[in-house]
């Protein structure tokens, strides 16, 4: 019997392979033609959100930078005017940079944001060839607009935004 042993072993192997091939679901994803769906709580590249009218949600408070454990975020703020309005309220981020080489995608910035302006999206396709281009700036991070009129800065009616920060929902509700 010992004579036939190798053949039996081989057939057994082939049987296993055929079984896997024909009856098990395919798990290979044909990236990049095909992309895997990420989970709802996936933490990918940051996106700076806008309100429906196009104004930026970010108020330049720098709390994301304070929360960032890897010191990847740099924010500098300026004052809004009704002539040149970026965000509702008094203050907006005139500079917003994230160093993607430093970011560890922990999502603390998202937690710290008082206006839900920064969201870690589902984009994980980041590539850069030098350190300079690893620094993502505000125009790169901002959510795209649907119409040119929604671009910031916007000219708004005087006194249209009297609050220093937009009203937010009471988190206890």
């Amino acid at each position, binding site marked *: 019997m010992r004579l036939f042993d190798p053949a039996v072993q081989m057939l057994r192997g082939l049987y296993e392979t055929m079984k896997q091939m024909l009856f098990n679901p395919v798990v290979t994803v044909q990236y990049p033609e095909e992309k895997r769906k990420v989970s709802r709580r996936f933490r990918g590249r940051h996106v700076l959100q806008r309100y429906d009218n196009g104004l930026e949600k970010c*108020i*330049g*408070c*720098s*709390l994301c*930078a*304070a929360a960032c454990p890897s010191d990847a975020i*740099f924010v*500098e*703020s*300026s*004052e809004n005017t009704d002539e040149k309005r970026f965000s509702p*309220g*008094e*203050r907006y981020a*005139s*500079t917003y*940079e994230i160093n993607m080489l430093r970011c560890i995608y922990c999502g603390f910035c998202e937690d710290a944001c*008082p*206006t839900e302006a920064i969201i870690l999206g589902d984009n994980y396709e980041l590539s850069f060839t030098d350190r300079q281009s690893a620094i993502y700036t505000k125009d790169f991070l901002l959510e795209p607009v649907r119409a040119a009129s929604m671009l910031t800065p916007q000219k708004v009616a005087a006194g249209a935004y*009297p*609050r*220093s*920060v937009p009203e937010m929902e*009471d988190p*206890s509700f």
Partner: protein
Amino acid sequence: MTDLVTLTIDGKQVSVPAGTLVVEAAKKVSIDVPVFCYHPKLEPAGMCRMCLVEVGLPMIDRATGKPVLDDNGQPKINFLPKLETACTNKVVAGMVVKTQLTSEKARSGQNSTVEFLLTSHPLDCPICDKGGECPLQNLTMEHGPGKSRFLFDEKQRLDKHVPLGDLIWLDRERCIQCGRCTRFQEDVAGEAVIGFAERGRTMQIVTHSDPGFDSVFSGNTTDICPVGALTTSDFRFGARPWELDEQASICTQCPVGCNVTLNTRREAKADGRIVVKRVMPRQNEEVNEIWMCDKGRFAHHYTDAANRIGKPLINKDGKLVKASWKAALDLAAEKLSASKKNLIVLASGRLSNEDLFNLKSLADGVGGQAILYSDMGGGEATLPVGLSDGSNLGALGKGDAILVVASDLYEEAPIWWLRVKQAADRGATLIVANSRGTKLDKFATHKIRYEHGQETATVKELGGKNKHADAIRKAGNLVVFFGNDGMGLSGSTSLGAACAHLLKDSDHIGRPNNGLVGVWPRVNDQGAWEVGFRPSVNLAEEIKGKAVYIVGADPAGDNPALAKALKSAKFVVVQDLTHTATADLADVVLPAQAHTEREGTFTSGERRVQRFYSAVPVFGEARPDFVITAQLAREMGYILEGSSVSIVFDIMSQSLSAFEGLDYPLLAEVTVQWPEVGHGDIYYGGTSYENKKGLGAHLSSAAQRGDAVRLASPRANKLPKPKENEVLAVPVTKLYDMGNTIASAPLLDGRVGEATIALNPLTAAELGAAAGELIRVGWNGSQSEVRVRTDASVAEGVALVPRSFGIPVYEPIGLPVRTVKKVKA
């Protein structure tokens, strides 16, 4: 010695002087009672109700007047039925206090107070400039309820965006109505330009003055504001407080030498450079306490000016071109060496002690002249009888006297004005002698008004027999401030000598809290006098045909006569921060580092030597002044210390007796100061910084050392007699002028305004000019447009001309009025 009172706070026994407030007594035993309206520098108000504590007093038997004892033989304590404010109640012997640490009642009282304060607070901490260093934030986290029972929709809505003048912003919603700012302006600064309007929940801060918040101390209210209601325009949305680095420095705007902290941050707007974002006061109870003036706070931008020089320049065929340090130094050394004894070193009091010492050593080595660029003299008098070691203006009070002659302290040195005013409040006799009215008059015990030219004679009379002289003779301590208000170099030289004689003759020298203080135009003029620089009456003549090494001064920009003289100089080397008009005339321009970029020391008018530290990276290829001088000297064949600033200081302390025994470690020493501010408890003293980098040290005076006190005799001051159709134009100093150190702060433009000459209304009427009218005055071939202001306290026939406003009046001169004509109303 005041009586000590013993009380018990949270079971800890503490003995404090009678009259101490409970909150201060608690602080002594490291118990922090939370406060908002209470401030150690202000009178208590009891407005915020945050410091609620349980207070018990020993029960007294009415019949015997003795304390009632309980079963254990201890005094029976009768606790007051309601919670008491720790900030208004003074300690009483045997008092028992239970703070939030031991009393549930106190804890819930404070908890409710926070809840109440937050009912209408906007909670916009994310964008508030105070966020991160906010007492309300901190105390809410520590003592607040965490949840509010009040309805969000019923929040009070008030204006959020109210400018109180150009410098201070008010957010009415954030205000918790503690009244710290109004009490500061009224009690400390003596200028009640802001106050409360309306009542109850809608009570709001308003300004009464025009321009709004017209006080040079306005920035201090933003420091002591326990919320973000008052913020500065300069720092508005500049950065979050936790992102800032801090470095100790000294303010360079006047001779007071306020201790400051520079807050720096890397900034995208400044192309990624690290820049000074704000200047904050640093506690030094003997200099500026925890205050500073708006000029120091907002005019710091000149170190970052657009016309900073970053590379040496050499004049090639009438054009300044960039060169290497070696080429520039070689050329300068060659030409300066060639001039031999015909070298003039012209330096200003903007430089540090070490720079001036090296410059003086170079001038001495070559055999040239070291001239101080200044139109105020009298420094010879401050060397022997200057303010003595151990002096503190804050210690002057009842029985002491302060004399202020020919100086408008409010405009020239605001913090001295504040300190002098406070001494007068404490009961010191304040004698103000001036040719015109100043803001200090209001607080003066005696006012002396003299005619122009009579300054020296007036001071001499104070040594004679009259009520003013009596006040001086009887004074326990006497401090004399002298300036150059309405005078030039020769007048102030003579006045300084007269003041020194007055101090010596009334035996007010060589003791702490006695002596002479020069109100100099620049931060370190006193240091320049100490190392041997002397001003020259005839500067234009001196520099003609000579090699001139100008450091930290802009004579050509200030005075057309000096510009002309410089053109005929043989060789001009200019060493400065910025590209000035003088630099345009230079053969070699050497870029110097600003005080924010390097280390060094300044000597204040009170003769206190204080260290400043480097806070930002060096601009371009600039080098420190003392290093450039040493390198230049080396090329010329003289060895000066040019590597370490502290070694230059050591050499200085060995060769100058006033500096003897001082060194850098000594200047960096800190002792515990009261009140304790700047620790974790920003709610207590505000956001002024704790002093961690040195309180500085006083220089010794000849009188104190026991050396012979030799004083020059004051000379009679001759004034030009205005001819017919002329007025006597005299120079006066304005706080905000058009000088190089202010020009780069556009925020102050509104305060600088335009050139304005002050005339007596009668004189103005004679000239046919009404107040507020624009007139054209011309003399010496130049013309200026100036606005007329009338002031009844100005002598008839006299025009007060502000310095550094483009009108070259440095000495009293006759101003022809024929050329005065109206341009427009």
